[in-house]
């Protein structure tokens, strides 16, 4: 897996975030380049999910700066100063950032097809026929061809998560965020979702994945980032971080998976 392009899709600089008096992000610096797959590992409460949610502003950021494709998601620069954007403009900028949630969060009152075309048709104003064609291709890609008329509750967890991936891909995002996409799944269903994600990584989708699946990190990641206590402890290739961790906290964390 060689990284051809070098333009950063995501630039996070000194990102800080507190919930009340608890500082959960103590200055995160991370760059993700086009086509790169970055896996974020770390114990519960290390701030990795919060950081991911800060990227598309589902959580507000207290300090630092996050640029996606060169733009601040929630702000614009006027006279060298950031100005908060109107929520509708924030919504417009979120279109380029796909997100897959731990709990799938499919819309239960819509069919699989309606879930997938809601963004392209309703938000981006695409022609319905064009969106349906792409939705069917995406369903085929995630291994769920001909399930477009099912309702989410008729699908298994693994199938629901793959629909959720198709829904995010339908917006043709420049960056995909995965927030523990397999943590809510039964063990036997984890594999099918990870396989889909690996295929996407191999096709050159830019992805940031928060997960506990060490094997996925080893197989699919270009870079592994280990977070603990609201800071990035160490990062590098899967070989470096997983097989030869330099930091004591990384070693202690990984020891639990052996």
């Amino acid at each position, binding site marked *: 897996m060689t990284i051809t392009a070098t333009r950063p899709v995501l630039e996070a600089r000194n990102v800080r975030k507190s919930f009340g008096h608890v500082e959960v992000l103590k200055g995160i610096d991370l760059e993700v380049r086009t086509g790169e797959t970055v896996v974020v590992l770390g114990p519960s409460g290390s701030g990795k999910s919060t950081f991911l949610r800060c990227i598309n502003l589902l959580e507000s950021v207290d300090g630092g700066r996050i640029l996606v494709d060169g733009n601040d998601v929630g702000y614009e620069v006027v006279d060298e100063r950031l100005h908060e954007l109107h*929520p509708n403009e924030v*919504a417009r900028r979120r*279109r380029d950032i796909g*997100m897959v949630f731990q709990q799938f*969060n499919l819309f239960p009152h819509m069919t699989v097809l309606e879930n997938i075309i809601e*963004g392209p048709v309703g*938000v*981006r104003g695409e022609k319905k026929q064009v969106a349906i064609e792409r939705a069917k291709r995406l369903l085929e890609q995630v291994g769920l061809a001909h399930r477009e008329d099912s309702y989410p509750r008729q699908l298994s967890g693994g199938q629901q998560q793959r629909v959720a991936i198709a829904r995010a891909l339908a917006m043709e995002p420049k960056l995909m965020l995965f927030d523990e996409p397999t943590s809510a799944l039964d063990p036997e269903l984890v594999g099918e979702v990870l396989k889909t994600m690996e295929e996407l990584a191999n096709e050159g989708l830019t992805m940031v994945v928060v997960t506990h699946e060490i094997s996925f990190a080893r197989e699919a990641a270009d870079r592994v980032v280990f977070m603990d206590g609201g800071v990035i402890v160490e990062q590098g290739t899967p070989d470096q971080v997983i097989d030869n961790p330099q930091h004591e906290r990384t070693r202690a964390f990984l020891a639990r998976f052996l």
Partner: protein
Amino acid sequence: MTAHPVQNEASARPAAAPGPDISEARRRRHPGRWVAALVVAVLLAQLVNMLVTNENFGWSVVAQWLTAESIMRGLGVTLLLTVIAMVIGIVLGVLLAVCRISGNPLLRSVAGGYIWFFRGTPTLVQLIFFYNLSALLPTISFGIPFGPEFITLNTNSIITPMLAAILGLGLNEGAYMAEIVRGGLLSVDSGQREAGAAIGMTNARIMRRIVLPQAMRFIVPPTGNQVISMVKATALVSVIALSDLLYTAQAIYNRTFETIPMLIVACIWYLIVTSILYVAQSFIERHYNRGSRHQTTGFLDFLKIRPRASLPAVMEGPTG
């Protein structure tokens, strides 16, 4: 010695297990139910006896007035008032509920204050208050606040009993509907909003396309209850001399002194209207509960006396 062969036989053919079997168990007797049935039967007989023999019920008067034109007009006013007050209540309720959960702290507290006031004072008092609004505000003007006035109206001439009733019942209902709608909106998982936001939907679109359709399941059934309550609450407007069903019946018995028969006429019509609404509501609830395992009781279920199934259906396996 003898235990062994029996055990072997049992493990080979489990159907022929020895000893007592639950399927042949003697059912428990319920002597208390027979006593209760006897007591109810005696009371019921007394009731029927009273209804038939007590001439003060004036059944002939009831029959004479039941479909009289004035009563029908009163019923029409009651129904019209119910519909208008509920429409105002629902529209106001949705607006207040959206304000209550909005990010704007001023809107939140204004809506909270409104709900606090209208739920905290009796509907009857509110009705009388609106009816006597002219005592507080002799004229109502439209114009620039603290500036010139364009139109000035005499309060007494615009606040008719009908308008006072619509204001009193509708504004009051808005406060209750707001809490029902808010409960429905909060019942939708926050992950749904986040999923909508993540594909770039605006807040208004998330509300319209994602949250409200899912909240309807929790909003519609209690709204049906509110409609039924409203039919009966309209009887309060008789205190401000609006000729609804009750006021019409009162007007007649004030003339003829046939108080009980006229109240029975009113009760019969209230029962007919609420019964129709109960049936409609049970259909609506069934519609919104599709797919969920919760069973709603039908309208006439209170009339049915039937033995509870003694064995759960799960036990009827394919081998049994």
